[in-house]
């Protein structure tokens, strides 16, 4: 068990050392709950030790694990969307996972690597962060009866995950579920088309009040 924390101020690349660790000036605030990360770390160790397992094909698995860890921790939901928490968690405790997941060379850090530990700006901000991107979809989808299938489908195609996560429509949890459900059995190009179709309709039609069937009808027309 570890005491959960968050960084005091949202970090930028200037707050990290060249090997993507905290600079000494970074300050932390303790939460009043603990985290047991052992399931995540054990699953990660198993992947590190078995070359047949591919970390990039294990997002669904790690998504469920991090969701269960947060559920068991008694963390208030306000923590879930506070990037300062995710920044602390990824850099302080899950740094090695993040490095391996994106195949980073710590001696040759690219600009794109910072967002994997710090999150990004805009709609895709959470989906760029290595751990938040696992948790957020699980937190929305696993509340559904068919949530397990939806979560598995969401992570099955990287393009699907990106297209959905980076659409402003997905900020509405109900719409997020409807879109994942509508694209359940689609291949990559069909998924991209379906989401583009919805994005194109959002100024003329109020998608936020549509139900699953209506979203699917709009998204899948002529696909």
């Amino acid at each position, binding site marked *: 068990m570890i005491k959960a924390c968050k960084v005091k101020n949202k970090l*930028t690349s200037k707050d990290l050392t060249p090997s993507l660790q905290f600079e000494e000036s970074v300050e932390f605030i303790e939460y009043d709950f603990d985290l047991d990360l052992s399931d995540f770390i054990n699953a990660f160790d198993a992947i590190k030790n078995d070359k047949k397992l591919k970390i990039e094909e294990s997002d669904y698995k790690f998504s469920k694990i991090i969701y269960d860890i947060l559920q068991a921790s008694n963390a*208030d*939901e*306000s923590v879930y*969307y*506070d*990037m300062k928490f995710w920044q602390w968690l990824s850099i302080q405790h899950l740094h090695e996972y993040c490095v391996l997941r994106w195949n980073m060379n710590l001696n040759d850090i*690219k*600009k*794109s690597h*910072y*967002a994997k530990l710090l999150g*990004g*700006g*805009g*709609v*895709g*901000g*959470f*989906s*760029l962060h290595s751990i938040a991107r696992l948790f*957020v979809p699980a937190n929305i989808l696993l509340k559904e009866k068919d949530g397990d299938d939806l979560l598995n489908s969401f992570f099955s195609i990287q*393009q699907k995950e*990106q*297209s959905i996560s*980076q659409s*402003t*429509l997905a*900020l*509405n949890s109900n*719409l997020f579920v409807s879109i994942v459900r509508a694209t359940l059995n689609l291949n990559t190009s069909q998924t991209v088309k379906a989401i583009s179709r919805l994005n194109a309709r959002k*100024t*003329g*039609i*109020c*998608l*936020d*009040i*549509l139900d699953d069937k*209506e979203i699917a009808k709009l998204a899948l027309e002529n696909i």
Partner: protein
Amino acid sequence: MSIKFGFKEKADLGMELSFFGNIKGTEKIGQDGNVLSFKERPSKSFNVSFSLVIDADLFSDVIPDGDIHSQKFIDSVEMKLFYESVNSRQRGLISLTKDAASSSSKSFIYKGDMTIDPKYWFGEINYKGIGIRIKECNEKEGFKTAKNSILGSSKEKRLYIDPFKPSSGGQLDVKIGEIHDYAGVLYKLDKKNMVVLLNNKAPKRVQQILSCEYQTGLKASLRDALFEPIVIDVIEQLAREAFQLMLANIEDGHVDSPLNLVEPYKSVACDIAELLFQNQETKEEMYQALVNDLEDEDSRIRIINKELPMIVQSLSKVEKLYNSISKQVLES
């Protein structure tokens, strides 16, 4: 069904969303009252009230349902408050109810509230009032008759939960210093310290002119004119870096908004977007247009290789400064 967008534009002009009542601890940002910001991040839940005033005439133009005061009309349209907060990952609708006592035959007034627990909100929340058709009616050319059509929307209002931090602007210091890595160069943009270095090995008279502190006169004009091409080049370097930062996660299909950059990249990228996409109505649309064009490889190459060198020149005062020094030299 056909959609005549002119009607929606007309409807948009006739809908005015306002913050209603005082929100303790906030201040207005800007002149038009569309943006409020807390001075300090609130710690307790609070209520935000809204009023949406709609010009009754526009309903006659956008809705072919007949009498706008009839029950049939009232049952077919709903007014909603649309909210969206990217940093909080929240978006949704709140029903607005007609304030019969305040409404008249010329304008309808709708009101609604939103309770905000700041624990769950980060950054800012954007609001719009929207009119939605909740029952379809007989198709009629030029009208939005389909169920769930957005009939019109107000201008956006914004509430910053985390206090608004004004842009620090883009002024870089100029210092005389050593440039080790290249021989025979006059200046260098030092991105680490965000300073423009003038080479201390440059001829003394060049250093003297470029670093002089005259406010007016020939030397001041010469300094400003000589320096402006350096400014143009530095802005272009900053712009290229800003684009690189926006494109850092392009492999994940993500292009960042210029608004999410740190200074001075933010100001440079925003200035370029505002000049490059003047045909867009709002600044947000201009920034999004830049994001869209950078995302596409062909338009990205066009912007960087063709547009950027001209845009940074347009942003500069080079023509004016050259005119000033030319005039002084020719007339002396």
